[in-house]
């Protein structure tokens, strides 16, 4: 996999993970182009498209689009399930995840992704093992901090 992007229906980028070296300028250009292309597609269309010399695999979950760029010989269907497994991981961690969780806890979304995918390849597919790694990290965290529950602060989750 060359990169993964999460963006909202309004085209706001929520998470970006690049597995190939690119300049910031190129990243922005690619993001702009892909967000536009994917948002323009109708709901019943297929989840794959050719783009430059890559294949794009995307899927929408509620208000968020998950979009992966894979290489020619990579498997589209298993990539769809990579996306799904990542959503499941977020869901399990945050408890029915929504876009706001990813906005306010973006760093966690990155940490979970790193446990699941590394260098663009699947590292660990077991949900249990990935979450174990993340929770271990949470257990290691210090008691001294003021852990304000951000949820109560923000208020209720927005409905999609």
């Amino acid at each position: 996999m060359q990169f993964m992007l999460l963006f909202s229906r309004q085209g706001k980028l929520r998470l970006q993970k690049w597995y190939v070296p690119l300049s910031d300028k190129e990243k922005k250009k690619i993001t702009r182009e892909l967000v536009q292309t994917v948002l323009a597609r109708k709901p019943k269309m297929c989840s794959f498209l050719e783009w430059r010399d890559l294949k794009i695999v995307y899927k929408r979950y509620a208000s968020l689009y998950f979009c992966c760029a894979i290489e020619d010989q990579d498997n589209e269907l298993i990539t769809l399930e990579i996306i799904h497994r990542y959503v499941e991981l977020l869901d399990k961690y945050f408890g029915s995840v929504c876009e706001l969780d990813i906005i306010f806890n973006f760093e966690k979304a990155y940490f979970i992704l790193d446990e699941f995918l590394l260098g663009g390849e699947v590292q660990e597919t077991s949900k249990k093992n990935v979450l174990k790694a993340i929770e271990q990290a949470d257990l290691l965290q210090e008691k001294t901090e003021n852990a304000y529950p951000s949820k109560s602060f923000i208020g209720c989750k927005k409905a999609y």
Partner: protein
Amino acid sequence: MPAVSKGDGMRGLAVFISDIRNCKSKEAEIKRINKELANIRSKFKGDKALDGYSKKKYVCKLLFIFLLGHDIDFGHMEAVNLLSSNKYTEKQIGYLFISVLVNSNSELIRLINNAIKNDLASRNPTFMCLALHCIANVGSREMGEAFAADIPRILVAGDSMDSVKQSAALCLLRLYKASPDLVPMGEWTARVVHLLNDQHMGVVTAAVSLITCLCKKNPDDFKTCISLAVSRLSRIVSSASTDLQDYTYYFVPAPWLSVKLLRLLQCYPPPEDAAVKGRLVECLETVLNKAQEPPKSKKVQHSNAKNAILFETISLIIHYDSEPNLLVRACNQLGQFLQHRETNLRYLALESMCTLASSEFSHEAVKTHIDTVINALKTERDVSVRQRAADLLYAMCDRSNAKQIVSEMLRYLETADYAIREEIVLKVAILAEKYAVDYSWYVDTILNLIRIAGDYVSEEVWYRVLQIVTNRDDVQGYAAKTVFEALQAPACHENMVKVGGYILGEFGNLIAGDPRSSPPVQFSLLHSKFHLCSVATRALLLSTYIKFINLFPETKATIQGVLRAGSQLRNADVELQQRAVEYLTLSSVASTDVLATVLEEMPPFPERESSILAKLKRKKGPGAGSALDDGRRDPSSSDINGGVEPTPSTVSTPSPSADLLGLRAAPPPAAAPAPSGAGNLLVDVSSDGPAPQPSLGPTPEEAFLSSGPEDIGPPIPEADDLLNKFVCKNNGVLFENQLLQIGVKSEFRQNLGRMYLFYGNKTSVQFQNFSPSVVHPGDLQTQLAVQTKRVAAQVDGGAQVQQVLNIECLRDFLAPPFLSVRFRYGGAPQSLTLKLPVTINKFFQPTEMAAQDFFQRWKQLSLPQQEAQKIFKANHPMDPEVTKAKLLGFGSALLDNVDPNPENFVGAGIIQTKALQVGCLLRLEPNAQAQMYRLTLRTSKEPVSRHLCELLAQQF
């Protein structure tokens, strides 16, 4: 599990994020961000030492701001400090910041590498994993240099935790992809292969990815992985859906690992060992059997995971291409998917069937689905699916179904999306030519293409129909009649006028017997279109007219009248004017015999690969033309319908003006070489033009992986020698190695130049992300402007791409620009930096002058710093003719009868730059006895004298 803010809620961060979300406008957001940046900056600069938590919070805010799309230019040091914190979350945020905002500051990199080194040595698996993730995320060469040697050790160490092994495997993979040279192969490779046997499925999953990548470069070193992969796969495939516990995904055992193992096996030919092969075939059959079983779940995840394995299995079967039984079963399975209600499956089935169509075992089986595929082309609502259907029709086409497929594709073309029209046109053109039994069908098809989608019919396509008609006399009469009829339409596409004009000019005589298409009728039909056409087409028509004068003497007076008209003879377009003048004169002064010779019918074109096919391949990447390339299904076809010469230069006689006079090669129009004689005009005047193949349209996108020009490597050691070869000449091979050849053609005039670079892929593998760029080191930017056109990001095996450079010399310069070429070959990045053969002497304008003037100027330039002199030994035989040629190539005029000693050479010229002109005088005194030369340069600018002297001295 508790929601949100597990662990380390950072209240300040949450407040900030929600502030940003509440901003009503972009301006408000920027204002809020700037306020925050100022705040963070002051905290970082303040006297009070920040505690770990605050540092983490601020670094996290910076990260958030950066991810919003704003630039961040500080905070790196604070992030680096966090790396050495003992608190996990602080360390974690530090690493995240470092991997997102990679920085090239070397001092910083040293500190980061130190922190990573400590964590790797800590024996704390969570810290080790964080460090490995960071290396994998950054993946830079510096990281590779620092850690590539350590990671294999961690990977195979007996006491490494499973999670550490997983991270180490993928970390190594990333480093290997970025800089393969830094990862040493060795004793560890054998142990990596044995990770395929590891108890921990996660370790196996990570290891397979690494092995798949490594074995591509060193297949023999990893050969033992075949049997291990087969037995692992076999165990998974035959396991019950619950055996693998957490590695079972929606009732499918280990789908990711299965797919990866099947991918790994595709790096090798079928296993040689009969037992291994038997076991593998059994696996493949099991997968195919399972596809027929009722689903264990209605969830799409179940079917996706299951089918992911199925498609990968089919890919492996196609890769082996040796088991007819499996190939046909695969084809039947895909046939079922063609009508599946899931769009995704239909798409993939069409795609996968394309490759099946090129196997001799399954080609017939694929063909049985033709009706379904045609139906898909007509009814699919998603354009990407329709495109796959068109691809498949193209792949399954052979002589038996060509007429049906071509007519369906023509019909589709009428409603096809604009984005894919050109490709469909190319495909139809290729199929029509390839499978034409009678050429009247071919001609009809191409004319239909022009009628339906004239705008998308590229030059290659209409050049091609002309080549074929020229080469086959059995179709010429039919072609003339058909184009004549097609031109009767009140509105016809300009491409039709071009084809019609050319064909009637060559073969109009074949239909002239019919009074309905008598010569005057043909002429007035063509001329009725003339005024609506572009310059290029009008130029072509003028050539048709002169050909008419030869074919039909009775039209001479009319046509001369047209040529003589003020609108032609005084046309503002220099090309049209020139043609009118020359053709008019030719028709008036030349005898009938001369006219007949000059305007003879075009000779057949030499047979070569179709240029259309080449174009399609460029459009689609490798494999696009494979179904037709190999011709293994239809070996006879290549004999009958062999290709014709692809270069536009040979076909261009009456074609666009640019070709005719070689204007493309000359920067200002005035530089066009005047044709030496009218006879020349009609033969191949542009054969020494710049394009050995149809020029490749520059792709609009930037090459995907091309990195900025700022980080190019130093020029290769031989760059100076290569440059020296081009000081006195403009054309030749600049560089060549096993992969790549770079050829140069250039022309200079005044302070302008145009250079064509030809990049030839010498391998049979496509280059990817091909991106050549020109870089100006130092001040050069202000001295020399080089404008480059982009080239396609892919270069097919054996193909050549051309890049055009427009050069303007702004002021005198000393060092040439760099040419940096980057691409990926077989996955490995390649880069190369050369010196572009543009030296100051290219902008020489020779100046003739008498001896008296010469000496007067010589004296005027008598300041010591204006003169540069060199005495040097001859490196080449001292042949006066060669010397003369070199001096002329250098650019100055050679002045005879100036130097009292006839053995000496004297030259003069002016270097033209935009800002100033530099007059130059030179004198070269050979001493044959001593095998030495003395070279003296005098110019009005000191550095120029010295530089020219150095450049020239190296040439003798």
